[in-house]
């Protein structure tokens, strides 16, 4: 048996053999039908078609390939990811083979997932507005169902030294450039650490975004006390997992008030209840990332099963619960005044 304290995961590993689930809870993102509302978040297992096929068989309705940039990047040295107790912090450094090589990965993934009816989202990043457009054009050759424009990675800065997602103007400029370059529906992935994410969402939708993915990881730092040094080789990284969830839910809630495009709510979802929370905030689909650390790819199966069971038990549909956090409750006025406690009574 594993030693006490061993890091083992209930749903890890042998989940490979699972067949595509019978559960269907279809949603639509920019005209693309997802049989199930869970999306593999970018940066998680998106490096190989084999791994994305496992995720699809475990219950994902769509998968996102690891963000590709203009040229190959080796990424940071280790440590690149640690569990700090309330979530993960990572700085992989956008390791990727470059857009030209990524085309083959997207093609292989499409081929592997087509029989399962699971669409592929190709994620991309770049360091200039023009470069975003060129990378999008390159990836479009592979025919992904959707493009995810990652303007929010903490590792990539615009000429002003901050992520493109940090201002409405730069976010819109990237979106418009990509929109003009390709015919594929465009999802823009936003950063949580902005003063008004609703304003940025409105700007990218005005610039042509077909959907929003919210949110990317939250910048953070973990210092190992004995050495007194940041544990990540990159020193700073992105916080994900349970610690990110309320931040992501808030962002989705704000975006849902600002725009009328589908939202892929991403950040710390690892249970059916978490997914319901995200959909209640206004998400059409739910991104799943760090949950794979906690439970392996079986996390998709667990979240989906719990979500489906809850909906069935309540005789509700996804459409009926989407955005319900935005409603104002009204309670009937009492027909007769409630009895007032007999204040002066007793000893």
């Amino acid at each position, binding site marked *: *048996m*594993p*030693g006490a304290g*061993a*890091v*083992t*995961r209930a749903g*890890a*590993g*042998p989940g*490979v053999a699972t067949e595509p689930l019978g559960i269907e809870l279809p949603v639509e993102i920019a005209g693309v039908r997802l049989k199930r509302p869970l999306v593999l978040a970018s*940066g*998680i*297992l*998106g*490096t*190989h078609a*084999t*791994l994305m*096929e*496992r995720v699809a068989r475990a219950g994902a309705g769509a998968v996102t390939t690891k963000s590709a940039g203009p040229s190959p990047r080796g*990424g940071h*040295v*280790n*440590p*690149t990811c*640690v*569990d*700090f*107790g309330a*979530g993960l912090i990572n700085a*992989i450094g956008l*390791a990727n083979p470059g857009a030209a090589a990524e085309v083959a990965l997207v093609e292989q993934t499409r081929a592997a997932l087509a029989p399962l009816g699971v669409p592929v989202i190709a994620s991309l990043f770049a360091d200039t507005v023009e470069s975003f457009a060129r990378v999008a054009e390159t990836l479009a050759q592979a025919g992904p169902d959707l493009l995810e424009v990652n303007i929010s990675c903490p590792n990539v800065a615009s000429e002003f030294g901050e992520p493109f997602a940090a201002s409405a103007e730069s976010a819109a400029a990237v979106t418009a450039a990509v929109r003009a370059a390709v015919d594929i529906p465009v999802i823009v992935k936003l950063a949580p650490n902005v003063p008004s994410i609703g304003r940025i969402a409105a700007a990218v939708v005005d610039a042509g975004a077909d959907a929003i993915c919210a949110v990317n990881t939250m910048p953070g730092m*973990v210092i*190992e006390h*004995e*050495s007194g040094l940041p*544990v990540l*080789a990159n020193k700073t990284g992105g916080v994900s*997992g*349970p610690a990110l969830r309320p931040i992501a839910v808030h962002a989705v809630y704000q975006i849902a008030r600002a725009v009328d495009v589908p939202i892929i709510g991403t950040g*710390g979802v*690892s*249970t059916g*209840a*978490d997914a319901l929370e995200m959909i209640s905030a*206004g998400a059409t689909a739910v991104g799943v*990332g760090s949950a794979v*650390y*906690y*439970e*392996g790819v079986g996390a998709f199966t*667990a979240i989906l099963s*719990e979500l489906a069971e*809850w909906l069935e038990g*309540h005789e509700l549909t996804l459409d*009926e619960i*989407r955005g*319900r956090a935005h409603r104002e*409750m009204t309670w009937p006025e009492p027909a007769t005044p409630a009895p007032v406690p007999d204040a002066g009574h007793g000893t």
Partner: protein
Amino acid sequence: MTVEKGPPGDGPVPALAATSRGASLGPTLPRAYRVLDVIVENYRTCTLRLDGVMQSDPGQFAMVWLPGLDEKPLSVQRDDPLSITVAAVGPFSRALQQVPPGGTVWCRGPYGNGFVPLGDDHLLVAGGYGAAPLLFLARRLAAAGMRSRVVVGAATREDLLLTEAFEAVGAEVHMTTEDGSAGTTGLVTEVVAPMLRDDPPTGTYACGPHGMLHALRGLATARGLPIQMSWEAYMRCGVGICGSCEHEGMLLCADGPVLDDAGQPPARGRS
């Protein structure tokens, strides 16, 4: 956005996990260990014995961190006290070897799935540095009073690793060298093939270069014998999310590094 139906609570409420299932994997930040002593194993390999325990299965690995330099996955050679055998192959491993007794290294883990012994007659096949996790396994098997044969292969006599340590735990040790400077001349398969034919073990466990593992898998499966192999790949996150260590559809850091002949994590409780 509007919602037609009332708040939850109207109907039967299926049980839902109210909170994230996560955050229960225990502390996984690197932990500081002091080096007790450093044992020289051969001209470029040594073992660091550390002043703490990392309860592990043979085949599991620790992420070993030298702040400001790098962090690498290294097999647990012994879990109490935690001991790591490292060959000097690059800047990180050379720096690790130079940490003096009393100095500090940081480890987190254990990670991955290790070997799962099958039956009571075992064959361990080590190529090069692959000897480290197999010594841990041999020690566990010896403690359980079971027979172990160990085949240790290397390029030359100088490259052979941990052969005396295997003998010290009571294993039957066979050596092979490619240049014939010790033991049988050739690759480990020269010795393993007749063993599998004439005196087949109940379980075979291998760690070493991928070419060796492929060859051994071929030999074992041709005879219908189970084999478990520890594979190697560059690891980034070490915890099963980044995808860097993909191997035949498996994540070596989380599903592996030990996989069975079917390419799956070895099933526990099967013997």
